[in-house]
């Protein structure tokens, strides 16, 4: 054997070996049942979380101590991951991805039973909890979000009232007029896109459901063209386009800065941003830091009404689930139940509680007073919408097409809005045909 053959054989063997490194299948269909007697459950469980801030400042430890009062034998450890999605996605190719984790967005719903243990049937859980159908596969629920969020415009009340606006706009046209009034009467940037940081642009997809006030909005996405005339996303994208086109945004969207935008909104240098109820806490904190009044931070629904009422969609945050390979499923389940029901996590985040009978948080009191209807959207077709989204490469949950939309509106990209939205619709409906729905 000469040297070359030896080398070739070695490489060949390595190739064969690596060819076999596929992804391992796992046990399927296990249940994580709630323990009957809290004193008897034991074991050490690892909780993977994206809230690195809460792990670092010791808040999570406090939750664990509180949890131990009921479940003294369970030891809870936390692992905060900065790039949660990216890291967990890779770890999920093994069996070692914690005992409790947040379901990464990338996991397809139909694969939930392969990765997670079931928390119970939908019929039983939906009586008590919101968002059950977001993780239901064949009647079984695999995850539970500890909080709920509601989309809306975060705005600076002082700036808006200084421009003479007292009532929330009820149509996109009114909203545009209000922004124009702000532009002419103050120095503030009427609307801040957060173009560079990208993910704030994806929030616009949460408009879906608000315009038509329809709990079947997700099903409509799966079955129809989201950019058909009068469809929710078309209304939303048109409004964003018109805001940009009327020059009501920051001067240079390509270098925006999310962290810096928070104090600027608090100080009234920025008037409005489309975000969600989760952002209010952060804006109020920024206001305190900047020495302005946190009460100036306002929150309003998308400017569209059905029969005289505003509608706002509730949606879950990351959903907690039990690893199907966990050795301590009962303890893991106990943690999820306790964290969802008793921890006060939702209250601390000023968020919507996942419990159906819980009162609305303070930040949503203005919604309650204005009679805004909160919609729990039916998510049975959610998985289908996600795969359509990936298949078509449109990306309604990704920032790219909205960045293109903003570029189009400010003239950095050629074309018309109608053609652009029609193009998105074509890609979407073609993917629908390919997936045979």
């Amino acid at each position, binding site marked *: 054997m000469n040297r070359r053959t030896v080398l070739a054989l070695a490489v060949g063997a*390595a190739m064969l070996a690596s060819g076999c490194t596929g*992804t391992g299948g796992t046990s399927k269909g296990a249940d994580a049942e709630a323990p009957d007697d809290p004193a008897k459950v034991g074991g050490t469980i690892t909780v993977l979380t994206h809230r690195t801030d809460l792990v670092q400042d010791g808040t999570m430890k406090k939750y664990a101590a509180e949890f131990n009062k009921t479940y003294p034998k369970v030891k809870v450890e936390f692992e905060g991951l900065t790039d949660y999605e990216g890291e967990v996605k890779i770890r999920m190719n093994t069996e070692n991805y914690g005992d409790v984790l947040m379901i990464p967005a990338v996991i397809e719903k139909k694969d939930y039973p392969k990765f997670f243990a079931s928390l119970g049937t939908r019929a039983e859980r939906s009586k008590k909890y919101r968002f059950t159908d977001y993780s239901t596969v064949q009647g079984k629920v695999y995850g539970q979000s500890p909080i709920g969020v509601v989309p809306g415009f975060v705005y600076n009340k002082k700036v808006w009232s200084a421009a003479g606006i007292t009532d929330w706009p009820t149509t996109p046209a009114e909203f545009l007029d209000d922004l124009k009034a702000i532009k002419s009467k103050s120095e503030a940037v009427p609307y801040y896109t957060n173009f*560079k940081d*990208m993910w704030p642009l994806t929030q616009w997809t949460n408009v879906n459901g608000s315009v038509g006030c329809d709990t079947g909005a997700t099903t409509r996405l799966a079955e129809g063209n989201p950019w058909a005339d009068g469809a929710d996303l078309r209304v939303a994208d048109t409004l964003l386009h018109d805001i940009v086109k009327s020059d009501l945004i920051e001067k240079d969207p*390509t*270098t925006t800065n999310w962290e810096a935008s928070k104090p600027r909104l608090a100080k009234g240098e920025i008037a409005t941003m489309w975000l969600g109820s989760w952002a209010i806490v952060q804006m109020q904190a920024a206001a305190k830091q900047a020495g302005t009044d946190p009460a100036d931070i306002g929150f309003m629904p998308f400017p569209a009404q059905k029969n005289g009422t505003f509608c706002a969609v509730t949606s879950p945050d990351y959903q907690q689930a039990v690893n199907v390979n966990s050795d301590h499923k009962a303890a893991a389940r106990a943690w999820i139940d306790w964290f969802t029901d008793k921890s006060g996590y939702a209250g601390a985040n000023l968020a919507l509680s996942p419990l159906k009978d819980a009162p609305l948080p303070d930040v949503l009191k203005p919604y309650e007073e204005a009679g805004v209807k909160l919609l729990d959207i039916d998510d049975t077709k959610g998985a289908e919408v996600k795969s359509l989204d990936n298949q078509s*490469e449109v990306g309604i949950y990704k920032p790219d097409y909205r960045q293109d939309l903003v570029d189009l509106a400010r003239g*950095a990209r050629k074309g018309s809005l109608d053609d652009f939205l029609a193009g998105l619709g074509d890609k979407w409906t073609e993917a629908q045909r390919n997936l045979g729905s």
Partner: protein
Amino acid sequence: MAHPTRRWRGVTPWLFLLAPLVLLITFTYAPIVNMVAYSFTDWDGVSPGLHYTGAENYAELFTRSELFEVFFVSGYYLAASVVQIAAALYFATVLSFNVRFRNFFKGVLFFPYLINGVAIGFVFLYFFQDGGTLDAILGLVGYDGDRAWLGTPISANVSLAGVSVWRYMGLNFVLFLGAIQSIPGELYEAAEIDGANRWQQFRHIIAPGIRPVLSLSVILSVSGSLSVFEIPYIMTGGATGTETFVIQTVKLAFQFNKTGLASAAAVVLLLIILAVTWVQRRLVPDDKVDLV
């Protein structure tokens, strides 16, 4: 039957080679083989199941011309690399002669290459932002350019390519400088005695002396321009017409979960770069240089 000591002599080099070979195979060849294997499947990057789909990914890639349009963006970086090589060559030549503060200037020119690409991306984001460093400096010299540097496709790509020149020129510069300094000093002395001026020294001694390094730099620049990633990904994320082929591939793999298709795209990029290099080697053969 070989003599025992001779047999051991045959094994010894392989023992030494074992560690690097294992590392090379584990971290370079095995992942490539995996990637090629994925390119024939419909894997989504996370699901336990994957199906063999034959050449379907490649067929899709070549029937969707818009996926190759992003190579126009590489043109900006290709043009920039011409500037980069010319500037590096100029500085390397100048600093190979006896210039005051030459070590200081060498440091200044090489320094950007030592900085992490992600840090450079953030630094230049502040540099180009509205009212940022660039605007401030232009303001000082009386030019009140009120423009969004990353605002239009042309301006953004030129700005990003400029950052790339700033970053990589140091590497070219050091390569050239090393090659120039390996030319024996007597040649210059002889040339000076014969009355050759600096330009003639460059033309007839330096340029032929560094030809292999020059051609290496060109290959690196071309493949670099085709696979630009870090700087545009961090600074614009591929928005406003700055998307490159690699950014597009990353988005296919990690945003749209089309790992199979993205792997195929990566294989195609590899083949394109190999092809370009091959063509270039055929056009400019790498002959042995013999100055003396």
